[in-house]
Every structure is written in C-alpha cells, then in structure tokens.
C-alpha cells in the first residue's frame, strides 16, 4: 500500500500546472469558450508537444507508458483551469478503448493521429432514450457483405463538433437493452450519411446530436466483436469516471480556495464574513467533502485495472461521492460569494456549472447508487 506519487508524476503535475497557469487563466479560457469554434487548436497542439496526448499509451504505441494515476494527475490540473479541450473523449475514452482493445492494424491506423494531436475523437454512445444505460442501444449496425450499415441517433455527444472520428456503439443483434449484440465502430465524421447538430453545453463545452443515416463502414471498423462491445464500453466509461473524478478535484479545490479567500476579504457589518462561525463551519464541510473526494478519486484510479466487479464498484462508489460533493461545494461556493457568485464575470459560477454537468456525466448519483448496490 502506497499513497505517494512517483517523481515522474510530480514532474508531470508541475508541468501541467505551470502550463495551465501560464496559458489558461480565466480570461483566456472565456475567450476560447466564446470563440466561434469553442476550443483552441493551438492549445491542443501544445498538449501534443508536451506529451500529454501520449501520456497513457505504451511505449510500443509511441506513448509514455503512463497509467490511470498519470491521467488523474493531468485531469486534476486541467480541472483547475476549467480546460475545455477534449482530453477526456480523445485520449481517455477513445484512446483508451483503442489502446486496450483495438487490433494492431486499428491501432496503427488511428493512434498516431491522437498522439500527434492531428485528430480529435468523440465517443458516441448515449441515445435520446438511453439515459445512463450504455446498453440501451437502438442505433443499428446491419451486416452488409464484409461491412456494416449504421442507422440511428446519438445524443449529447461531447466534443463531437470538433471531432474527426467517432467510436460509435451500435446494435448488431438482439433487443434494445440486451447486453449482447452491441458493437463498437470506428466511423469517420466525414463519412457519407453522418450529420451533426452542434451546440454549446452549460459547462462551456460543445456537443452534438449525431445522426447516422445508412452509413456504410467496412468490417475492420469493428473493435473487438459483437459480444464484448458493451463490456469494452463500460470499462471505458469507468476510466472516464476516474478521469472526471480527478477533474472535479481541480474544480472543488479552486472553489474552496476562492471561497476562503473571498470570505477573508469581503466585509459586512464591519468584519470579514469569514469571521462568522456558520460560514466557517460551512467552509469546513466544503473542505471535508473535498478531502473525501480526493480519497475516493485515489481509490478508483488505483482500482481501474482490477477485475470487472471491483472496478465497477469502485467507479460507482467514487462517482456517488463526487456527485454529492461537487454539488455541495458548487452550491455553497455560489452561496458564500453571494450575488457575485451568480455572475458570469466570476469563475465561481463556471466551476459550479461544470461540476453540475459532471454529476450527470456517465450517470448521476441515483444511477451509481443502484449500480454500487448491485455490484
């Protein structure tokens, strides 16, 4: 049992931290969010140069041989800066699936574009009716000769407006909510029959409704096979949970720091409002929520490589913690900032909104409490 970071991980943290401080202060961030595209290709290129996009991949794949703990370190620091560039969908979700389950040919064809920063990927798995059940799939993949034809709509696909490629879950066989019969397909956004309706999301990101209309893909677009698709997908989502738990630590830490600082300087009734015991204890509760979240984030990221049952339980437990803590910290940070916390001008509200989305992302507290109990 060991709770310390390696020297490399500490260096990695320092590097990302400096990069975010120097290049991604709140004003820069808001400029990027409000820009036409909503992300910065320049920042993305710098991620590639810094090796962040290569961090979790093995050396054979051209990567830096990192693991979940390295991703955790990176995501935590990206969270502090409320970074919108699509590290999670490209590297953690799609990159993770490719590195763990794609064939050598698929990896050769696709990983270099991720590591080099040329391609952005999005994971198109949720559907209008599926809520938080990744196995509730209506999008169909009909065998057609050596290949497949895809039809269906994917809902709220994060980063899709920026993406060049998708990994798409589609049903090859079985009923709407059968665990078996789901395949994961690599689909070019430029493929004929793919269309997107793009929009911003409440947390400053971008997403799309993605429609597939008779989209023909070749047989080697399928990752794994039709019996393992859902397992691969669920594993990827659990890795995603590990990553956004870490991201949320960055948000909570920023909010807690900002709130303590604000309460020390904001005066009412002739004294700093931080001298009121009720607000002090509120901040203590925020601090404790953060500390408990740190613990659960370490826990889940250490357990992502364990067996499926343990991984599921760890991921759901951590997601419940982060959902509750993030909600509490976000709401109370706004409350303690008073009217100022309600304005677009301060970063507080933006952290709050990202934490609100994180509670829903990959399933909310209710969903994961049930999954935890059944694991």
């Amino acid at each position, binding site marked *: 049992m060991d709770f310390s970071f390696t020297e490399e991980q500490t260096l990695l943290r320092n590097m990302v931290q400096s990069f975010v401080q120097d290049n991604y202060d709140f004003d820069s961030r808001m400029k990027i969010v409000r820009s036409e595209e909503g992300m910065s290709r320049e920042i993305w290129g710098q991620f590639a140069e810094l090796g962040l996009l290569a961090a979790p991949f093995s050396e054979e794949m051209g990567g830096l041989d990192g693991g979940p703990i390295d991703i955790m370190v990176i995501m935590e620091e990206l969270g502090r800066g409320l970074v919108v560039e699509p590290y999670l969908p490209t590297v953690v979700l799609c990159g993770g699936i490719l590195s763990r389950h794609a064939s050598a040919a698929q990896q050769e064809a696709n990983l270099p574009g991720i590591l080099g920063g040329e391609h952005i990927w999005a994971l198109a798995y949720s559907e*209008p009716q599926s809520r938080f059940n990744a196995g509730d799939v209506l999008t169909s993949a009909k065998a057609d000769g050596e290949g497949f034809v895809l039809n269906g709509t994917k809902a709220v696909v994060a980063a899709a407006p920026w993406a060049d490629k998708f990994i798409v879950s589609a049903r090859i066989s079985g009923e709407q909510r059968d665990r078996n019969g789901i395949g994961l397909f690599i689909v070019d956004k430029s493929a004929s029959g793919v269309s997107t*309706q793009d929009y911003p999301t*409440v947390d400053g990101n971008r997403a799309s409704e993605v429609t597939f209309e008779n989209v023909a893909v070749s047989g080697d677009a399928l990752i794994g096979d039709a019996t393992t698709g859902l397992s691969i997908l669920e594993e990827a989502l659990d890795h995603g949970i590990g990553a956004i738990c870490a991201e949320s630590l960055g948000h909570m830490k920023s909010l807690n720091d900002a709130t303590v600082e604000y309460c020390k300087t904001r005066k009412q009734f002739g004294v700093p409002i931080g001298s009121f015991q009720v607000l002090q204890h509120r901040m203590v509760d925020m601090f404790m929520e953060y500390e408990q979240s740190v613990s659960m984030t370490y826990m889940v990221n250490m357990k992502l490589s364990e067996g499926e049952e343990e991984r599921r339980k760890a991921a759901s437990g951590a997601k419940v913690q982060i959902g509750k803590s993030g909600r509490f910290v976000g709401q109370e940070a706004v409350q303690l900032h*008073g009217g100022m916390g*309600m304005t677009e001008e301060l970063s507080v509200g933006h952290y709050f909104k990202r934490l609100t989305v994180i509670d829903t992302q990959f399933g*909310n507290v*209710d969903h994961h409490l049930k999954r935890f109990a059944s694991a």
Partner: protein
Amino acid sequence: MDVEFTSEDQAFRAEARKFIEDNYPKHLIGADRGDLSKEDFLAWHKILAEKGWVAPSWPEEFGGTGWTVTQKYIWNEESAAFGTIPPLPFGIAMLGPVIYTFGNQAQKDWVLPGIKSGETWWCQGYSEPGAGSDLAGLKTRAVRDGDDYIVNGHKIWTTLAQHADWMFCLVRTGAEGKPQAGISFLLIDMKTPGITVRPIITIDGGHEVNEVFLEDVRVPAEHLVGEENKGWTIAKFLLGNERSGIAGVARSKKAIDRLREIARGELEDGAPLLESSDFARRISELEIDLTALEYTELRTLASESKGQGPGPESSILKIKGTEIQQRITELTMEAVGNYASPWVPQLDRGDNYRAIGPDHAEGVSQTYFNTRKTSIYGGSNEIQRNIIAKMVLGL
C-alpha cells in the same frame, strides 16, 4: 379548526378561474420569463388593473379588493395553477404599501395610480457593492442643495432596471450615530441625467439584474418619503413585506406537477422515471415539505387576518420556500438526464432556434442555475436565520 372552503369561497374560486381563463393573453400562456418584453410583462398587469384586481393586498381606500385572507389565498392558487405572469412586485408588493403607509398625500396621489395602471415601472435601489447582507452599510450619498438632493453612488442587483421609469432608493443623508440612523428613502426618476444602467449577466445566461451608477443626480426634495434620516424604518417595513410573499407555495405546487409530468415521460431502462422508487421518494419528500409550508403560511395568514402583522416567524416562509424551489429545480434538471446539458440561453436564441432533445428539457438547467439566487436575495437565508435566532428565540 377547519380546512373546508365555504360555498362563498368556492363561488369566488370559480369566478377567479373563469376570469383568468377568459382574459389571460393567449400568447403569454406558458411563456418563459427570460423571453418577455416590457409589454409582455405588463399585459396581464393592465388587464387586472382594469378589473380592479391588481392589488389585492392593498387597503380598499387605495384600490385594494377587500378580499378575505382566504380569497387572496384562492386567487394566488388559481393564478399559479394557470401559470400567469404575476403583476410586477416592485410597485404592487413593495413600494405601494410604503407609500400608503409613510407617504404624504401628494405622493399617494401620483405614485399609487401609476403603480396600479402599470404606467410607472419601478425598480428597487437597495443593495450596493459593499452593502449586501449588511444593508445599513450603504454608501450612496444624498446631499441637500436648495430644493433638491444631489445623489452620488452605485447600486447593484437592481432587478429589471433596464425597463424601469423610476427607482425607489435608500441613500445616506446623515453620517452620525449608528449606520441605520442616517438613511433616507428617495424616489428617483430614471431619466434624470447622471444615471447609467449597466447589465449584469448571470450564470444562467440571463439579463435580469443590473448595476445602477448615480453621478450628481438631482432629485427634487419632494420625492423624499417620510422624514429625512428615518428611512431605515421604511426599509425594514418593506423587507418584511417582501419576505411574506416569497414562500411561493402555489407556484411550487405547479412546478412539482410539471416535474411529475416530466418524470412520467422520461424513461429509465424503458420504464417511466416516476416509477423508480428513489425518484418517487424524492418527489414525495418535496410534496410533504411543501404541504407543511403551505399550512405554515396559512397559519401565518390566519394570525395576520386577526391583526397581527407578519412577524419574524415569516422568515421561515422565506427559508423553506426558497429551499423547496431550489430542490424542485434541481430534481427537474436531474429528471431530464443528459438533456440537461445543452445550453441555449434566451439571449442567444436567434430566429432559426431549434430545441435540443425533448421540449420539456428546455431551459431546466438555466432555471436551476437561476434559482440559486433565491437563497441569496431578499436577505440571505443565513440572515433570515439570524433574524429568527434574535427576534424569536431571543438568542
């Protein structure tokens, strides 16, 4: 003790309902508050004014309806059930009672009719950057100069000031004694030179509040309400009134109905979310807390109708009412799942606007974010607890 309505009350309910159904502007049914123009805000107000029903809480001599407490309760219920846009609170609920209680005859004569007709849109100049919870810490100064006051200062969180014709305003006229001692209550024409209104965009993307800068604004002294340096009494009187309307029971009932409707339409593994025992439990808890609040409000109204004014106990209505509103909007956002994420604030909607996801998901996140303000404004919920601790428990 009896919870039944008399047949007179039931007849009144029927009349009220019919009047709303027959007269409420069709294009405003189900309208979203953030989308309203100035005319939209005032349309229903003006119809009510014509009917003589715009100010039920005022004494009859100033244009009130003379309704019983029960009738007012019924009117609120029917209005909320239909989902009307309530008359602007700044004139009817806030300034009106101040004027007929503290104003002189001339002020009564020109202010009250304008409030009722909707001709004059009022805004409230209370908070300042350095004076939020600690309202008495306000710094905006009014210096007497002949028949005028010269006002300099900076107000903030001024709701809908972008539409306002006039502002009622707390200003500092004296520097001696306790901070509360030197405050006066002034009426200011928003068209006076020296006034600048700057929008504040909130985290829901809406433009509801503003900053108001006052630079050498000349205000005739006849627009002082009550005595100079005695404005704090008026300020507290107004805050007390503000608190009692804030429970919002009837509107929360309607919001729970809507939540239930949404949860019936949203599916979880193919079954309505409403059938999930966890979700149903949380709706039940909301309904029970709201029922308790409803009866607490009724008990308060009953003792008011016996001549006891709204006491410090009414802080409960503010605290519980806003907590419930926040929980409803939060649960509604949760109900729509992934479709809580799309972000199309009112300000950004062009003509070619197309909704993302199911219609019922539209704006639920914005409403949730916006509703976070309710535990901050009108005296934060922490301040309300301080009031109860001091005034009720004697701590």
